[in-house]
Structure formats: C-alpha cells, structure tokens
C-alpha cells in the first residue's frame, strides 16, 4: 500500500516537473505556490447543469476572481455523464478543481493517485468544520483530498397537513411498531403508506442503508459495504425480512417509478410518507411555497434499541483537485477560498432566476442556522440526532459493485421477495468475483 502511494507521488512529481519545463505559465504557477495569492488562472469542472447550483458556482467564482484576480474557466457537464466518465476525465485533461462527493467515492480515486493532496487547505480552514466532515474528506492514507460544500439527510418525509388529518405527529412515529401502525392507518384511508420508486436502481438503496443501520448498527453496515462482512449473513436476511413488511404499504408499481414518480405521490397527497434525501424539497418549492412549507422530515424510526436512531445517510457534496490538472496550486487556492466562510457566504448569496435565495445546508459550521427555514431546521435536527454519518450505499462501496450489482439485486428482490436467499448468495458471489482494486 505504502509502496503504491510512493510510486504515485513520484509519478506526480515527475509530471509536475515535466509540465513546469514545458510552459512558462505552468512553471510560474509552481513557483507561486509558496503561499502567494496569485496562483494563476484555473479551470473549474462542475458536476451539474441545474440552474440553482450553477448560480451558486458562478457567484462563488465571481467572488474568488474579484479577490485574487485569478481567472476561472467554467466547464459544466450533466451529472450522470460526468459521473460515468470521471475515471477517464481524471486521467485525461481534467479541470483543476472539480465537484465530487466525500467518502468512498473520493477515496477510490485518491488511491489511484488521481486526486491532489489537500492537507494544506485543511490546515488553513480545518477549524471551521466538524470532525465528521474531516473524516469524510480523508483518504485511506490519512491525507485530505476533499473539501465539503453541503450535505442533506435521508429521512422520512411527509406532509404536515396530512399528518394532522391522520392524528399523527413526529413523536408518535419513533419505533418500528408505531411506524407500521402509521402505515396501517394510512392504508385504511386508501393512501399509499410508503411511497417508493426503484426504476433507477439506486432509489431503494437508501431504504437498505437505513434498515441495515437501524437493525444491525453502523459498524456492521460499513463493514458489509467494505466487504468485511458477508451478504449471506443472517443479519442481512433480517433486513430483507423487515423490508418485506413494508411492501404491502408501498405503491404496487415500485419498479415502474423513478424517485420523482414516488415524490409525485406525496405531492399529490396520494401517499402518506416517503423515505428520500431532502434535496427533493426544491421540487416542492418550485411547485409552490405552500407545498414546501407543508413538507416535513423526521428520522427513520428505531428498530433495534441497541442502535436507536444513531445513524443517518447524509451524503456530502464538495470539491477535489485533480492531480493531472495543469494548476494544482490554483485548485487548492480556490478551495481554500470556497471552503472558508467567505466563500460559503458568497455561495449562499447567490439568487435563482426568481431572485430568491437558494436553500443550502452548508458543511461549514459557521453558517448562520438562524437563517434556515423550517424544513432546513428539521433537516439539521435529523442530522444532529445521529452519531454516525454514512454517505449512501452507492458512495460507500465500490462503484463497480453498487450500480451494476446491488441495484439490480434489489430490483429483482422487488420482483420476487421470496428469492431473498438466492439474491444474497448472488450478491456475495459477485462481490467475491470483483477484481482487486488497482
């Protein structure tokens, strides 16, 4: 392991020298890396073409350029395409800084030497972040490769008005029995209790994550996804047994709906609750402010008292610096600004097309939470209750396992829940058959 790391750093150094020798500009930026403000022009790779994030990025970049006079070239790619092509992107001619995700997804590329060490950035702005964010930004070699921007929790979403009509409140749905009772009550009213869609293959991973964490605890979940525990374990079967109890309360067309189909059920008041990441709140807001104000989130109920509600899936989005970029110091300098409260404020000041502020829960602990709206405050509460943060199944395990193996496995389970033994056998067999990481 350490041999590989040394090999990579040696290569990086050689590459740096080659670039420095080739162009005066690059050579200049290498020299200027020693603490100077002017690290030269850089390129920014955005992982989204959505209006909201684009407005935020542009505002952040404008503030950075105004402060440092460093020009930033903006290159935005649609998120799915960007994600699928990241490996090539990083080996080719990547932008200096690019948007990515924390945890395993970042470590995977850091291990291959494709990300630049950002320890110096963390030395400067590290005290503005809680320890859990630093852990999520750290590679397997103990160095930081990531600067967090924002997060959102996964939890049970419902509409306040419907909860009121059903005579429910957040503290009447704290454990599994109460939860099933709630679903039963919704079913009796002719509602879908647990709106679900899994056409995309990733949506139901969130349900697996939370059930596994609630039943078997954080440590087992993390170990399972890292291959240190077996999918054929009785504990995993227990997860599917609990999950099967939810099926009668789901919409029957789970495999025909993508996540937004499930969301529409909640929006149209045809469903009583939905487990999802809070990011979809933007859709409610777009529909109408009243719909957004009606939206609420609580933590997924407790199942095993030993673990309580101590874990939450809360994916962290942020930035990395590409080792193969032409201006690593520029990228790091940009992230020093972006991760600092100054950059966070510039991002938060961005406005959407209607002139409204874009809601964002920043990873920086300096963000003034009193400006949060009610829904954001609830998200924060869900987050604060949890002791352990997981990133989401497809961010916590190997990319060549999550999407191609776990996704279809869960889909086939939905088709035939009785096949669960066959499915976990196949999951384990496919994990065992994966090639070792380079």
């Amino acid at each position, binding site marked *: 392991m350490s041999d590989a790391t040394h090999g990579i750093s040696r290569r990086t150094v050689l590459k740096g020298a080659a670039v420095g020798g080739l162009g005066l500009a690059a050579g200049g930026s290498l020299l200027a890396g020693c603490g100077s403000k002017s690290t030269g022009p850089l390129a920014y790779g955005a992982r*989204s073409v959505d209006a909201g994030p684009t407005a935020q990025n542009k505002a952040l970049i404008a503030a950075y350029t105004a402060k440092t006079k460093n020009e930033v070239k903006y290159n*935005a790619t649609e998120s799915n395409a960007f994600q699928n092509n990241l490996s*090539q992107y990083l080996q080719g001619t990547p932008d200096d800084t690019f948007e990515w995700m924390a945890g395993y997804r970042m470590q995977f590329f850091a291990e291959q030497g494709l990300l630049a060490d950002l320890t110096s950035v963390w030395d400067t702005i590290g005290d503005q972040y809680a320890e859990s964010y630093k852990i999520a930004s750290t590679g397997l070699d103990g160095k930081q490769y990531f600067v967090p921007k924002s997060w959102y929790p996964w939890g049970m979403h419902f509409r306040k008005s419907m909860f009121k009509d059903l005579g429910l409140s957040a503290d009447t749905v704290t454990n599994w029995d109460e939860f099933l009772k709630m679903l039963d009550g919704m079913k009796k009213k002719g509602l879908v209790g647990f709106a679900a869609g899994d056409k995309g293959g990733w949506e139901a991973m969130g349900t697996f994550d939370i059930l596994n964490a609630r039943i078997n605890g954080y440590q087992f979940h993390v170990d399972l996804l890292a291959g240190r525990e077996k999918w054929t374990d009785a504990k995993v079967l227990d997860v599917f047994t609990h999950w099967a109890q939810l099926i009668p309360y789901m919409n029957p067309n789970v495999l025909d709906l993508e996540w937004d189909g499930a969301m529409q059920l909640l929006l149209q008041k045809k469903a009583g609750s939905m487990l999802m990441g809070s990011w979809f709140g933007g859709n409610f807001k777009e529909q109408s402010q009243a719909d957004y104000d009606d939206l609420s989130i609580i933590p997924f109920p407790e199942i095993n008292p030993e673990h309580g509600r101590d874990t939450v899936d809360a994916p962290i989005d942020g930035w990395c610096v590409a080792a193969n970029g032409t201006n690593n110091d520029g990228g790091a300098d940009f992230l020093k600004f972006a991760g600092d409260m100054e950059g966070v404020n510039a991002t938060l000041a961005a406005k959407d097309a209607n002139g409204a502020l874009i809601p964002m829960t920043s990873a920086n602990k300096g963000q003034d939470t009193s400006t949060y709206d009610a829904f954001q405050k609830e998200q924060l509460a869900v987050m604060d209750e949890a002791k352990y943060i997981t990133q989401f199944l497809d961010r916590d395990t190997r990319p060549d396992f999550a999407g191609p193996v776990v996704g279809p496995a869960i889909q086939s389970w939905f088709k035939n829940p009785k096949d669960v033994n066959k499915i976990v056998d196949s999951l384990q067999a496919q994990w065992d058959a994966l090639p070792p990481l380079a």
Partner: protein
Amino acid sequence: MSVDVTLQAAATKYRNKQKIKDRFISAFIGVFAIAWIFPIIWTIWTSLRPYKDVRANGVFSLPKTLNLQNYADAISRMDLPLYFWNTFAITAPAVFLTLFFGSLIAFVVSRYSFRWNVSLLLLFTAGNLLPAQLVFIPVFKMYITLGKAVGIPRLLYDSPWGVVLIHVAFQMGFATFVLSSYMKTIPKEISESAMVDGATVFTHYTKVMLPLLRPALASLGVLMTTWIYNDFFWALVLMSTDSKRPITSALGRLQGEFVTDYNLLAAGAVIAALPTLIVFFILRKQFVSGLTLGSTKG
C-alpha cells in the same frame, strides 16, 4: 353464357377473398405503423405540456395548458448554435474521410487481385464487429499517451479531431464492405478498357470509378451522417470540455442532477432530431437505396 357467369362468379369470389386478405394485411400494417409512430407522437405530445402540470396531476391526466414554452426553454438552455456547430465540425470531416478512405480501399480490393485482398476486406469488416464499449479504454489511453509524448495533451484527447478519427476508424469497415460490394456490380470491362487506354491507377480511381460510385456514396453518406450525428458515447469518453461536445450531449443539459423535466427533455429531443429528419426527407431516395446497397450482388 353459363360458363361466363360461372367465371364471373369465380372472379368475384376471388376478388372478395383478395379484398379480405388486403384488409387483413392493411390492418396488420396499420397496427405496426401505430406501434412505430406512437413513441414519436407521445414525445411531441409530452413536449407541449409543462412539467409543473404533469407533476401535480400525473402523466395521464388531461392537460390544463398546451404551449411551446418547453421549446423556448430548451433552445435557450441548450446553447444550440454552439452545439450544432460542434456536431457539424465532427460529422462533416468524419463522413468525408470515411467515404474517401473507404472508397480507396474498396477500389483496391475489388479491382485488383493480389494475394491478400480478400483477407484485407475481411479484416476491415471484422473491425466492425467490436463494440465501442470494449475498445474505448485502449483508445483513450492511446490518445493520452500520444498527447503526452508530443507535449500537447489535447492533441487528440478532448479535441474534435480525436473524435473524428475514431469515427473514421469505426465506420470505415462498413463503408469499405458496402462500397466494395457495389463496385463488384460494375462490369470489369469498364476497368479493363480504362487500363487499355492507358489510365494510371489514380486516373482509374478518380475518373472512372468515382463517378460511377456516386449513388452509393450519396446513400452511404446519408447513413453515416445519421450514425455519427447520433453518437454520444465517443464524445463523452474522449472529451473533457463540455463546450466542445456535440448536440447529443447538449441534450444532457436539459437533464437535472435529481430532477429530470421530461417534458423539457422531449422538446429538446425533437429539436435535436430535426436536422436528421430534414436530411432524411431531402435524401429519402438515397436512404432507402442505401438500405439495400450491395445486397443484389450475384
């Protein structure tokens, strides 16, 4: 007289039978036509509805509003002129080079007999059998290595020329195959008399074969244009700057990270499909003859 009547009756009977058969066939074709046209109609229908309406009332609800707003939004968000230009800058040279090189090889393997000519043709056709997903990693590495070797990292990778080259390489097998089959239908005597008249190999190609190849080149050109126009894969894996990518990737700009406004996407898809449709309707004849190209070689 009676024979006449019987004959007439038989004829009527036959005609009626034929009519029923015809009706049956028409119904059959009709069903298939509807099955084919339905997705297109549905796309257009979807593109006219606002997403907000669908989100609130469901896909199968009756529309409250129908308008062209999605088209206006798609045009403004897709940055059309830039991406259409990118597509043109990739498609035009790629089609031209494919036809040029394809016809050269086809010319040699079909007009001159030498030891390896059949093997050569097979080699080119076999290249066609490899799926792009299988070979893209080596191609990608090759582009990167070459760029690094000459000191210009974007020589082929992240450059339209790199994409043009890979299209030429990939389509040339098919072009060679089709053009050589077509050339074999041109009588050998024409070539022989050209040679007797003292034409060099080059004159033989430019002055004799090329003019005769024109219909084949036209239809193959139309086919190639649609194929290369529709490519998304190569532009994605061989380019890192989105503003250099073709129109197919601009469609991605209409797709959100989480929220996909399918109504907007449908409008974008209709816009992106327009140029190929226009090309198709203008060159319909060539397109159809292109489908049967070389298939009648005895």
